[in-house]
């Protein structure tokens, strides 16, 4: 199956939904690691939207990316509650530990505000991080 055929299949799987665009974009992002221009074109055609409309939506949301990034991603919460629990003091060590291999990204709140600093890798979540625990997490990502 070509990539385009698979994209059309994803669109068809969501055809019965009201307002199917976000669920489609989530499925495409999960499968291909991004929603690039070529995917936008296919989705726009399938939903009878303009490419500009689809691109406008893709570029609005933080969860959708134009290019795939094969590196494992550690999402570190740096919102107020985790700041109050000292996350900023851990950032330099975490950045140093990422090197070329891991991507460290900032997320604003994982809902673990009473046990921060907190981080997420995929669906795995981690709390009560100190510098050593966070560095270990980055290294094992």
């Amino acid at each position, binding site marked *: 199956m070509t990539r385009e055929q698979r994209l059309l299949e994803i669109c068809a799987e969501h055809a019965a939904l009201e*307002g199917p665009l976000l669920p489609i974009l989530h499925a495409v992002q999960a499968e291909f690691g991004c929603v690039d221009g070529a995917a936008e074109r296919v989705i726009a055609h399938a939903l009878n939207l303009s490419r500009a409309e689809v691109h406008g939506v893709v570029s*609005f949301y933080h969860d959708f990316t134009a290019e795939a990034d094969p590196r494992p991603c550690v999402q570190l919460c740096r919102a*107020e509650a985790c700041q*109050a629990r000292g996350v900023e003091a851990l950032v330099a060590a975490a950045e140093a530990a990422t090197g070329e291999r891991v991507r460290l990204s900032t997320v*604003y709140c*994982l809902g673990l*505000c*009473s046990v921060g600093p907190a981080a997420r890798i995929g*669906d795995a979540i981690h709390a009560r991080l100190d510098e050593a625990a966070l560095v270990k997490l980055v290294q094992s990502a």
Partner: protein
Amino acid sequence: MTVVRISDDAVALACGADAVAAAFASAGCTVERVSSWGMHWLEPLVEIGEIGWGPVTVADVPTLLLHSRESGNPSSDAGAITAPEMDPRLRGDDGMWGREIAAHPFLAHQHRLTFARAGRTRPLSLDDYAATGGWTGLDRARTLAPEQVVAEVTLSGLRGRGGAGFPAGIKWETVRTAAGAHKYVVANADEGDSGTFADRALIEGDPFALIEGMAIAAHAVGAQRGYVYVRSEYPHAIAKLKSALALAESRIAPFVIEVRVGAGAYVCGEETSLLNSLEGKRGEVRAKPPLPAIEGLFGKPTVVNNVLTLAAVSHILSTGGAELYASIGHGKSRGTMPIQLAGNIRNGGLFEAQFGITLRELVYGIGGGTKSGRPVKAVQVGGPLGAYLHPDQFDLPFDYEAYAAADALIGHGGVVVFDDAADMGAMARFAMEFCAAESCGKCTPCRIGSTRGVELLDRLRDNAITPQARDEDLAVLEDLCETLQYGSLCALGGFTPYPVRSALKHWPEDFRP
């Protein structure tokens, strides 16, 4: 066989509950995964009989089993096992070691209605739900005419728990009487405020309560379809809710609920932006009017309520529920608020209380002060758009009007504690920076003003600034805050001045080079 109860709430999981549960299971215990009691500093909290231990690590498992077996019937005797003998770690008195959970002061001082099942039931057990009064609100509501259901919600005094505090009954009545055959109920679970986790805790711990509340709302307004918009940062809540909906499908039929996942945009917590996102559009805010109650999702009349509002309705529609809800609270803020104690606090977690409780009680009495042991410098109530409150204001009662009068907001009930290491100038800058990063771009004050705000705050804190330039910049900052507050389309731009102005007012020394 020993039955061990351990939460599968995200906080427990993030603190290692799965490994502890696996260790008990491999030791031959029956492990039940339950909701969290909300005492987050104790997670993973292990419950045998009604006796609790926490925080527990895998290494503690053999010792715990030995003690619970030696004591025979743990529910009557294990309370005699005291912390210091068993676990030197806990001499700092923050843990719980062999004590009756329900008697813990953190729980005993609460008034749990929305979170009545927290810690007590298995989240996806229909039997547990029914055995604890589940579905009685919906069953009763369905015997009543829609206008009677709305009247009970109005009578209860319930106000929107998302932050705006708009009376739920009035919103429902508007949708009920709106013209049109197609109507929707939308649950806002886009809980993006830092310091808040009650929506997540409710969905993960008691998902049927939300589903029941939505079904009641649907009956009251005549809606056929419902959506729960959950943020993508909550993967466990999404999975739980999907499972719960599959289990409850026949119970709520013909009403149908679908889960939709957000995509990382904070502004989608604003109701009109959320509706656009559900429709598959950019999450841009809509101008009001028209109100969503008249022209909401796909242009149809729509109830948009926060998760906690809808979950409270399940209780309110049970027999006598509305009267009870209206009978407690403070001023025009009726019932209870699930308050979330977060940040630098010793005993953090979920604390559901009647309105009227003070920050002094919450932060010092319940929360035990800061986790770092240093003095409390500031408390931010109501998320990133909430004001920073100074300890001098800690006697303010938790109440929508009292907070508004003090230029603050209770928002979604998040309380984030900061110790004296906090740089309030940096926090004010962060508020502007956050607004700039999350602005939907629709209105100019928010889109441009937030970036100008970051620049101004940087200049004020720059060594090179002259006293005259500083005075001018302070005047411009005040002007900018006013423009944001009164000129923005929604609360993101409109409320960002709250943290900025409050920080500047109470801690001006932090706004100097």
